[in-house]
Protein backbone atom coordinates (compact mmCIF):
# COMPACT_ATOMS: atom_id res chain seq x y z
CA UNK A 1 0.00 0.00 0.00
CA UNK A 2 3.04 2.28 0.10
CA UNK A 3 2.63 3.20 -3.53
CA UNK A 4 -1.07 3.86 -3.29
CA UNK A 5 -1.91 7.51 -2.78
CA UNK A 6 -4.33 8.80 -0.19
CA UNK A 7 -7.12 9.48 -2.68
CA UNK A 8 -7.03 5.90 -3.95
CA UNK A 9 -7.35 4.59 -0.42
CA UNK A 10 -10.25 6.96 0.22
CA UNK A 11 -11.98 5.79 -2.98
CA UNK A 12 -11.58 2.21 -1.87
CA UNK A 13 -13.02 2.93 1.60
CA UNK A 14 -15.98 4.81 0.12
CA UNK A 15 -16.56 1.94 -2.31
CA UNK A 16 -17.16 -0.30 0.69
CA UNK A 17 -13.71 -1.67 1.52
CA UNK A 18 -13.85 -0.26 5.03
CA UNK A 19 -10.85 -2.19 6.28
CA UNK A 20 -8.62 -0.22 3.86
CA UNK A 21 -9.04 2.74 6.20
CA UNK A 22 -6.34 1.13 8.32
CA UNK A 23 -3.79 2.13 5.66
CA UNK A 24 -4.62 5.78 6.19
CA UNK A 25 -4.43 5.29 9.94
CA UNK A 26 -1.01 3.65 9.68
CA UNK A 27 0.21 6.40 7.37
CA UNK A 28 -0.69 9.31 9.64
CA UNK A 29 -1.01 8.01 13.18
CA UNK A 30 2.54 8.72 14.36
CA UNK A 31 2.81 12.11 12.68
CA UNK A 32 -0.48 13.27 14.14
CA UNK A 33 0.39 11.74 17.49
CA UNK A 34 3.56 13.82 17.59
CA UNK A 35 1.62 17.01 17.05
CA UNK A 36 -1.06 16.08 19.57
CA UNK A 37 1.46 15.09 22.20
CA UNK A 38 3.15 18.43 21.82
CA UNK A 39 -0.13 20.31 22.08
CA UNK A 40 -1.72 18.28 24.88
CA UNK A 41 1.46 17.29 26.73
CA UNK A 42 0.02 13.99 27.76
CA UNK A 43 0.44 10.69 25.92
CA UNK A 44 -2.83 9.14 27.05
CA UNK A 45 -4.87 12.22 26.11
CA UNK A 46 -3.06 12.49 22.80
CA UNK A 47 -3.84 8.89 21.89
CA UNK A 48 -7.48 9.21 22.91
CA UNK A 49 -7.92 12.43 20.92
CA UNK A 50 -6.17 10.85 17.95
CA UNK A 51 -8.69 8.00 17.96
CA UNK A 52 -11.49 10.57 17.95
CA UNK A 53 -9.82 12.35 15.04
CA UNK A 54 -9.62 9.21 12.91
CA UNK A 55 -13.24 8.47 13.74
CA UNK A 56 -14.30 11.99 12.75
CA UNK A 57 -12.29 11.77 9.54
CA UNK A 58 -13.90 8.42 8.73
CA UNK A 59 -17.41 9.75 9.27
CA UNK A 60 -16.71 12.73 7.02
CA UNK A 61 -14.64 10.96 4.41
CA UNK A 62 -17.31 11.13 1.73
CA UNK A 63 -17.59 14.88 2.35
CA UNK A 64 -13.85 15.48 1.85
CA UNK A 65 -13.81 17.64 -1.30
CA UNK A 66 -10.19 16.90 -2.29
CA UNK A 67 -9.35 20.53 -2.90
CA UNK A 68 -6.49 20.07 -0.46
CA UNK A 69 -4.24 17.15 0.40
CA UNK A 70 -5.76 14.57 2.73
CA UNK A 71 -2.98 15.33 5.21
CA UNK A 72 -3.95 19.02 5.32
CA UNK A 73 -7.61 18.15 5.84
CA UNK A 74 -6.78 15.57 8.48
CA UNK A 75 -4.37 17.82 10.36
CA UNK A 76 -7.08 20.47 10.47
CA UNK A 77 -9.31 17.95 12.25
CA UNK A 78 -6.44 17.03 14.57
CA UNK A 79 -5.60 20.63 15.35
CA UNK A 80 -9.21 21.66 16.01
CA UNK A 81 -9.92 18.61 18.14
CA UNK A 82 -6.80 19.25 20.19
CA UNK A 83 -7.74 22.88 20.60
CA UNK A 84 -11.24 21.89 21.77
CA UNK A 85 -9.71 19.52 24.28
CA UNK A 86 -7.38 22.23 25.56
CA UNK A 87 -10.16 24.78 25.71
CA UNK A 88 -12.56 22.51 27.51
CA UNK A 89 -9.89 21.76 30.09
CA UNK A 90 -8.85 25.31 30.74
CA UNK A 91 -10.82 27.47 28.40
CA UNK A 92 -10.04 30.94 29.63
CA UNK A 93 -6.47 30.52 30.76
CA UNK A 94 -5.38 28.61 27.71
CA UNK A 95 -7.04 30.99 25.31
CA UNK A 96 -5.25 33.93 26.82
CA UNK A 97 -2.02 32.03 26.87
CA UNK A 98 -2.08 30.79 23.31
CA UNK A 99 -3.83 33.42 21.26
CA UNK A 100 -0.91 34.83 19.32
CA UNK A 101 0.80 35.55 22.59
CA UNK A 102 4.22 37.05 22.62
CA UNK A 103 7.17 34.82 23.34
CA UNK A 104 8.97 37.68 25.08
CA UNK A 105 8.29 36.33 28.53
CA UNK A 106 8.59 32.72 27.56
CA UNK A 107 11.48 30.70 28.97
CA UNK A 108 12.38 27.12 28.40
CA UNK A 109 12.47 25.12 31.61
CA UNK A 110 15.61 23.69 33.11
CA UNK A 111 16.79 20.63 31.24
CA UNK A 112 17.83 17.88 33.61
CA UNK A 113 21.05 16.02 33.01
CA UNK A 114 21.57 17.33 29.54
CA UNK A 115 24.90 15.66 29.18
CA UNK A 116 23.42 12.33 30.20
CA UNK A 117 20.70 12.29 27.58
CA UNK A 118 21.15 9.17 25.52
CA UNK A 119 19.76 10.77 22.44
CA UNK A 120 20.60 14.40 21.93
CA UNK A 121 17.66 14.65 19.60
CA UNK A 122 15.44 14.23 22.62
CA UNK A 123 16.46 17.65 23.80
CA UNK A 124 15.18 19.49 20.76
CA UNK A 125 11.98 17.45 20.99
CA UNK A 126 11.64 18.52 24.60
CA UNK A 127 12.23 22.15 23.71
CA UNK A 128 9.59 22.08 20.99
CA UNK A 129 7.23 20.33 23.39
CA UNK A 130 7.67 23.17 25.86
CA UNK A 131 6.49 25.80 23.42
CA UNK A 132 2.89 27.01 23.84
CA UNK A 133 0.53 24.62 22.00
CA UNK A 134 -0.10 26.78 18.95
CA UNK A 135 3.58 27.52 18.47
CA UNK A 136 4.39 23.87 18.89
CA UNK A 137 1.76 22.99 16.30
CA UNK A 138 3.15 25.52 13.80
CA UNK A 139 6.70 24.25 14.26
CA UNK A 140 5.63 20.61 13.91
CA UNK A 141 3.53 21.25 10.84
CA UNK A 142 6.23 23.29 9.13
CA UNK A 143 9.36 21.34 9.93
CA UNK A 144 8.19 17.80 10.59
CA UNK A 145 5.07 17.48 8.45
CA UNK A 146 6.51 19.75 5.76
CA UNK A 147 3.28 21.65 5.26
CA UNK A 148 3.51 25.02 3.50
CA UNK A 149 2.69 28.30 5.24
CA UNK A 150 -0.52 28.43 3.20
CA UNK A 151 -1.50 24.91 4.26
CA UNK A 152 -0.72 25.62 7.91
CA UNK A 153 -2.87 28.76 7.73
CA UNK A 154 -5.69 26.58 6.39
CA UNK A 155 -5.21 23.96 9.08
CA UNK A 156 -5.08 26.46 11.93
CA UNK A 157 -7.66 28.82 10.48
CA UNK A 158 -5.26 31.76 10.65
CA UNK A 159 -3.87 34.26 8.23
CA UNK A 160 -0.57 33.39 6.59
CA UNK A 161 1.06 36.40 8.22
CA UNK A 162 0.06 35.19 11.68
CA UNK A 163 1.52 31.77 10.92
CA UNK A 164 4.75 33.43 9.80
CA UNK A 165 4.91 35.56 12.94
CA UNK A 166 4.48 32.49 15.14
CA UNK A 167 7.01 30.45 13.19
CA UNK A 168 9.50 33.33 13.25
CA UNK A 169 9.18 33.74 17.02
CA UNK A 170 9.39 30.03 17.74
CA UNK A 171 12.43 29.59 15.49
CA UNK A 172 14.21 32.53 17.06
CA UNK A 173 13.47 31.33 20.58
CA UNK A 174 14.75 27.86 19.81
CA UNK A 175 17.86 29.23 18.11
CA UNK A 176 18.57 31.58 21.02
CA UNK A 177 18.18 28.82 23.59
CA UNK A 178 20.38 26.42 21.68
CA UNK A 179 23.03 29.07 21.09
CA UNK A 180 23.00 30.44 24.64
CA UNK A 181 23.40 26.98 26.08
CA UNK A 182 26.08 26.02 23.58
CA UNK A 183 24.05 23.08 22.42
CA UNK A 184 24.57 23.49 18.74
CA UNK A 185 27.85 21.60 18.95
CA UNK A 186 26.37 18.76 20.96
CA UNK A 187 23.23 18.49 18.91
CA UNK A 188 24.53 17.32 15.60
Amino acid at each position, binding site marked *: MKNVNDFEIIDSVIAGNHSD*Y*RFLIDRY*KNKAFGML*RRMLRNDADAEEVLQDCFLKAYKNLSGFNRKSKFSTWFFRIVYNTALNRINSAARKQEKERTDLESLDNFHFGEQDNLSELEEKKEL*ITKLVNQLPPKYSAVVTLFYVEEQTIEEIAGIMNMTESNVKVML*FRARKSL*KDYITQNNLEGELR
Partner: protein
Amino acid sequence: MTHLSDELLFRELTGELSDIEKNELKLHLEQCAECRTLHQNYIKTDRLIMNIEPPEVSEEFTSAVMNRIKPVIIRSGISTGRFLTYLSLTFVTLFSVLAGYLISNMNQGSREGGGESVFNSVDFTGYYEKIGAVISSQAFQIVSMVLFFGFAVGLFFTYEKFRKLKSY
Protein backbone atom coordinates in the same frame (compact mmCIF):
# COMPACT_ATOMS: atom_id res chain seq x y z
CA MET B 1 28.22 47.58 7.94
CA THR B 2 24.58 46.72 8.46
CA HIS B 3 24.14 43.20 9.75
CA LEU B 4 21.58 40.71 8.48
CA SER B 5 18.28 40.80 10.29
CA ASP B 6 16.48 37.79 11.77
CA GLU B 7 13.54 38.70 9.55
CA LEU B 8 15.63 38.42 6.41
CA LEU B 9 16.98 35.04 7.49
CA PHE B 10 13.43 33.92 8.19
CA ARG B 11 12.34 34.96 4.72
CA GLU B 12 15.18 32.83 3.41
CA LEU B 13 13.64 29.86 5.23
CA THR B 14 10.19 30.45 3.78
CA GLY B 15 11.61 30.95 0.28
CA GLU B 16 10.50 34.55 -0.04
CA LEU B 17 13.80 36.15 -1.01
CA SER B 18 14.15 37.61 -4.46
CA ASP B 19 17.19 36.70 -6.57
CA ILE B 20 18.76 40.07 -5.77
CA GLU B 21 18.26 39.55 -2.04
CA LYS B 22 19.71 36.06 -2.29
CA ASN B 23 22.84 37.45 -3.96
CA GLU B 24 23.17 40.20 -1.37
CA LEU B 25 22.79 37.64 1.40
CA LYS B 26 25.46 35.45 -0.12
CA LEU B 27 27.89 38.34 -0.55
CA HIS B 28 27.29 39.60 2.96
CA LEU B 29 27.83 36.16 4.48
CA GLU B 30 31.18 35.92 2.72
CA GLN B 31 32.33 39.18 4.28
CA CYS B 32 30.78 39.16 7.76
CA ALA B 33 31.79 36.53 10.30
CA GLU B 34 29.18 37.65 12.82
CA CYS B 35 26.31 37.16 10.38
CA ARG B 36 27.84 33.91 9.18
CA THR B 37 27.62 32.60 12.74
CA LEU B 38 24.04 33.78 13.09
CA HIS B 39 23.13 32.18 9.78
CA GLN B 40 24.83 28.93 10.76
CA ASN B 41 22.99 28.87 14.09
CA TYR B 42 19.66 29.22 12.32
CA ILE B 43 20.56 26.50 9.84
CA LYS B 44 21.60 24.15 12.66
CA THR B 45 18.38 24.90 14.52
CA ASP B 46 16.31 24.21 11.41
CA ARG B 47 18.12 20.94 10.81
CA LEU B 48 17.63 19.84 14.39
CA ILE B 49 13.90 20.53 14.32
CA MET B 50 13.51 18.80 10.96
CA ASN B 51 15.13 15.70 12.40
CA ILE B 52 12.62 15.33 15.19
CA GLU B 53 11.28 11.84 14.87
CA PRO B 54 7.56 11.40 15.44
CA PRO B 55 6.77 9.34 18.52
CA GLU B 56 5.00 6.06 18.02
CA VAL B 57 1.52 5.29 19.21
CA SER B 58 0.81 1.99 20.92
CA GLU B 59 0.85 -1.14 18.77
CA GLU B 60 -2.85 -1.80 19.16
CA PHE B 61 -3.80 1.73 18.11
CA THR B 62 -4.93 0.89 14.57
CA SER B 63 -7.03 -2.05 15.77
CA ALA B 64 -8.57 0.12 18.47
CA VAL B 65 -9.65 2.72 15.89
CA MET B 66 -10.96 0.07 13.50
CA ASN B 67 -12.99 -1.43 16.34
CA ARG B 68 -14.52 1.96 17.02
CA ILE B 69 -15.28 2.42 13.33
CA LYS B 70 -17.06 -0.91 12.93
CA PRO B 71 -20.24 0.10 14.80
CA VAL B 72 -20.26 3.35 12.83
CA ILE B 73 -20.25 1.39 9.57
CA ILE B 74 -23.14 -0.78 10.70
CA ARG B 75 -25.11 2.09 12.23
CA SER B 76 -24.50 4.43 9.34
CA GLY B 77 -26.86 2.42 7.20
CA ILE B 78 -24.40 2.23 4.36
CA SER B 79 -26.29 -0.90 3.38
CA THR B 80 -29.18 -1.66 5.69
CA GLY B 81 -31.67 0.98 4.59
CA ARG B 82 -30.83 0.60 0.94
CA PHE B 83 -30.98 -3.16 1.14
CA LEU B 84 -34.48 -3.12 2.64
CA THR B 85 -35.66 -0.55 0.10
CA TYR B 86 -34.39 -2.56 -2.84
CA LEU B 87 -35.79 -5.74 -1.33
CA SER B 88 -39.29 -4.33 -0.90
CA LEU B 89 -39.28 -2.57 -4.30
CA THR B 90 -38.14 -5.76 -6.00
CA PHE B 91 -41.01 -7.68 -4.45
CA VAL B 92 -43.56 -4.99 -5.28
CA THR B 93 -42.54 -4.85 -8.93
CA LEU B 94 -42.36 -8.63 -9.13
CA PHE B 95 -45.88 -8.78 -7.74
CA SER B 96 -47.00 -6.18 -10.30
CA VAL B 97 -45.51 -8.15 -13.18
CA LEU B 98 -47.16 -11.36 -12.00
CA ALA B 99 -50.50 -9.68 -11.31
CA GLY B 100 -50.46 -8.03 -14.74
CA TYR B 101 -49.60 -11.32 -16.40
CA LEU B 102 -52.35 -13.26 -14.58
CA ILE B 103 -55.08 -10.69 -15.13
CA SER B 104 -54.10 -10.29 -18.77
CA ASN B 105 -54.28 -14.07 -19.27
CA MET B 106 -57.61 -14.32 -17.50
CA ASN B 107 -59.08 -11.59 -19.70
CA GLN B 108 -57.66 -13.15 -22.83
CA GLY B 109 -59.00 -16.59 -21.77
CA SER B 110 -62.47 -15.27 -21.14
CA ARG B 111 -62.48 -13.44 -24.50
CA GLU B 112 -61.25 -16.51 -26.42
CA GLY B 113 -63.82 -18.63 -24.62
CA GLY B 114 -66.48 -16.30 -25.86
CA GLY B 115 -67.27 -15.31 -22.34
CA GLU B 116 -67.14 -11.91 -20.81
CA SER B 117 -64.05 -10.28 -19.31
CA VAL B 118 -63.22 -11.40 -15.83
CA PHE B 119 -63.97 -7.84 -14.74
CA ASN B 120 -67.39 -8.02 -16.26
CA SER B 121 -68.16 -11.38 -14.70
CA VAL B 122 -67.50 -10.01 -11.25
CA ASP B 123 -69.36 -7.11 -9.91
CA PHE B 124 -66.46 -4.70 -9.91
CA THR B 125 -67.11 -1.07 -9.65
CA GLY B 126 -65.76 1.03 -12.50
CA TYR B 127 -62.81 2.14 -10.40
CA TYR B 128 -61.44 -1.37 -9.90
CA GLU B 129 -62.05 -2.16 -13.53
CA LYS B 130 -59.83 0.72 -14.58
CA ILE B 131 -57.05 -0.42 -12.25
CA GLY B 132 -57.32 -3.95 -13.61
CA ALA B 133 -57.09 -2.63 -17.15
CA VAL B 134 -53.98 -0.61 -16.32
CA ILE B 135 -52.29 -3.54 -14.58
CA SER B 136 -53.02 -5.86 -17.48
CA SER B 137 -51.81 -3.35 -20.09
CA GLN B 138 -48.59 -4.15 -21.93
CA ALA B 139 -47.04 -0.77 -21.12
CA PHE B 140 -47.48 -1.36 -17.39
CA GLN B 141 -45.96 -4.80 -17.65
CA ILE B 142 -42.94 -3.51 -19.59
CA VAL B 143 -42.35 -0.71 -17.07
CA SER B 144 -42.72 -3.17 -14.20
CA MET B 145 -40.25 -5.56 -15.79
CA VAL B 146 -37.68 -2.80 -16.27
CA LEU B 147 -38.15 -1.64 -12.69
CA PHE B 148 -37.93 -5.22 -11.48
CA PHE B 149 -34.56 -5.76 -13.14
CA GLY B 150 -33.34 -2.39 -11.89
CA PHE B 151 -34.24 -3.16 -8.32
CA ALA B 152 -32.90 -6.71 -8.60
CA VAL B 153 -29.52 -5.31 -9.69
CA GLY B 154 -29.64 -2.84 -6.80
CA LEU B 155 -30.44 -5.70 -4.46
CA PHE B 156 -27.49 -7.67 -5.76
CA PHE B 157 -25.00 -4.84 -5.24
CA THR B 158 -26.36 -4.07 -1.80
CA TYR B 159 -26.03 -7.71 -0.91
CA GLU B 160 -22.41 -7.55 -2.08
CA LYS B 161 -21.84 -4.64 0.29
CA PHE B 162 -23.33 -6.67 3.10
CA ARG B 163 -21.07 -9.55 2.24
CA LYS B 164 -17.99 -7.30 2.33
CA LEU B 165 -19.15 -5.85 5.62
CA LYS B 166 -19.50 -9.35 7.04
CA SER B 167 -16.01 -10.30 5.91
CA TYR B 168 -14.60 -7.07 7.36
